[in-house]
């Protein structure tokens, strides 16, 4: 008896309601603009945004700028996640390392990645590295602590089982028990990093690094709010795609759950 009572509604019915709901929302919005209640720079019409969106794909802006942004994103995530997972494992496994590193990380962690922007710029300039640095910071803390928590929280009796089955070496236990048992937590950490990282990309680029974020700000300076919104749509769509893909991978890896 899980979930609240289900209305007798078919799969098709659901889809219809959902589409109607979105269509109604967009229609209302378009109507508001048509009524002339708002100047288009305060609220561009959905149709205008759609046209601009197609234009910006046609003139190659979206693919090009998205390319830059994804590069920042990928680089930052790769660094942040690898370091985070590695150090998280080590800290959960070695009490000594934990004692030494934990206070330093606890000291730095409350500073949000975006507060490092000035230093990112002064250390790396207005470059891919600066954006990647900011993204990797967030991903690092998140995956570090999720890995650490995941390893600490595994059912340690499974390690006993492995030992009775003849598995004696640390590396054997880490590889065959600790990592798979902590995998759900690690993957959750990575998924959270994907979300925060994407937000960081957009914000970091607004400080002058080529990419979608900068383009949005520049368009806003021209009061081309349809362009701003077209890029918001790009951001949303790409994130949706990334999250969806990752969830599929995650479900596949954790189908045993």
């Amino acid at each position, binding site marked *: 008896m899980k979930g609240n009572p289900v209305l007798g509604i078919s799969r098709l019915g659901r889809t219809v309601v959902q589409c109607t709901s979105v269509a109604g929302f967009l229609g209302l919005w378009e109507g508001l603009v048509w009524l002339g209640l708002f100047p288009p720079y305060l609220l561009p019409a959905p149709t205008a945004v759609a046209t601009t969106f197609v234009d910006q794909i046609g003139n190659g802006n979206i693919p090009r700028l998205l390319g830059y942004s994804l590069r920042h994103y990928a680089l930052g995530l790769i660094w942040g996640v690898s370091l985070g997972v590695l150090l998280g494992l080590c800290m959960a496994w070695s009490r000594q390392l934990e004692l030494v590193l934990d206070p330093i990380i606890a000291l730095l962690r409350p500073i949000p990645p975006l507060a490092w922007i000035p230093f990112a710029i002064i250390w790396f300039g207005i470059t891919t590295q600066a954006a990647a640095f900011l993204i990797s910071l967030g991903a690092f803390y998140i995956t570090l602590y999720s890995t650490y928590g995941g390893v600490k929280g595994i*059912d340690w*009796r*499974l390690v*006993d*089982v*492995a*030992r*009775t*089955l*003849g*598995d*004696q070496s640390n590396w*054997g236990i880490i590889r*065959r*028990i600790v990592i*798979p*048992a902590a*995998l759900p937590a690690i993957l959750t950490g990575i998924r959270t990093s994907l979300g925060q990282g994407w937000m960081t990309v957009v914000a970091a680029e607004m400080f002058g690094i080529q990419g979608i974020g900068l383009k949005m700000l520049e368009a806003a300076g021209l009061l081309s709010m349809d362009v701003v919104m077209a890029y918001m749509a790009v951001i949303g769509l790409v994130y949706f795609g990334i999250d969806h893909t990752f969830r599929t991978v995650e479900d596949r890896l*954790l*189908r*045993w*759950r």
Partner: protein
Amino acid sequence: MRSTKLEVRELSKVFRTVEGREILALKDINLEVLDGELLCILGSSGCGKSTLLRIVAGLEQPSAGDVLINGRPLTGPGPDRGMVFQEHLLFPWRTVRQNVEYGLEVKGGPKTARAQECLSMVGLENSSEQYPKELSGGMKQRVGIARALANDPAILLMDEPFASVDAQTRSDLQAMLLTIWWGTRKTILFVTHSVEEAVYLADRVILMGSGSGHIIDTVSVDLPRPRYRVSPEFNDVRRDILKRLGFLTGE
């Protein structure tokens, strides 16, 4: 005459809690288990049954005393002793087959054939590609047994393996265990807190005192197998044990 497989001598175990208090879990345990014997250890919750088994498995260090296997002192966990746990403790990310293959994988060498063989012994040859979450409680316990058998250990340590399945499944599993024991002639240490289960399975039953961590009595069960749970003789042994455990003093 059968040889002694396992000997426990003057074994004691003291746990120290985080607050520094000492808990005497086992006190001066002496035990001899013959090769091929099916020994049940019976006692109520907290009397130290699991601790004893964990020490024999090599997962816990004794505070005093020795454990000898084939006359040689114990050095740690090893594939010569297989253990089955109450909470089944299967590796949830491995399929049934992969669970059973674990020990063989650690050892290296071929594994699939032996795993399949052990799964047949517990009647699960057709579920080898399922994940633990897809199995019923009874099936999980079977996999746990197959996994412990895969290394072909001489001694099988079973810690209340059937405590959390329903009555029907439980009696099926008991029958299966006897068949396997008969077929492989392993030495089995079987922990339980059900008098009925002990009487049904054991060659000999060790009774542990509640909360004191020592052996209060030993009862040989000389009933022929297969045993019949509602027969008067069965009921007599059951009654005898309950009396020795102090349950029937009010009568």
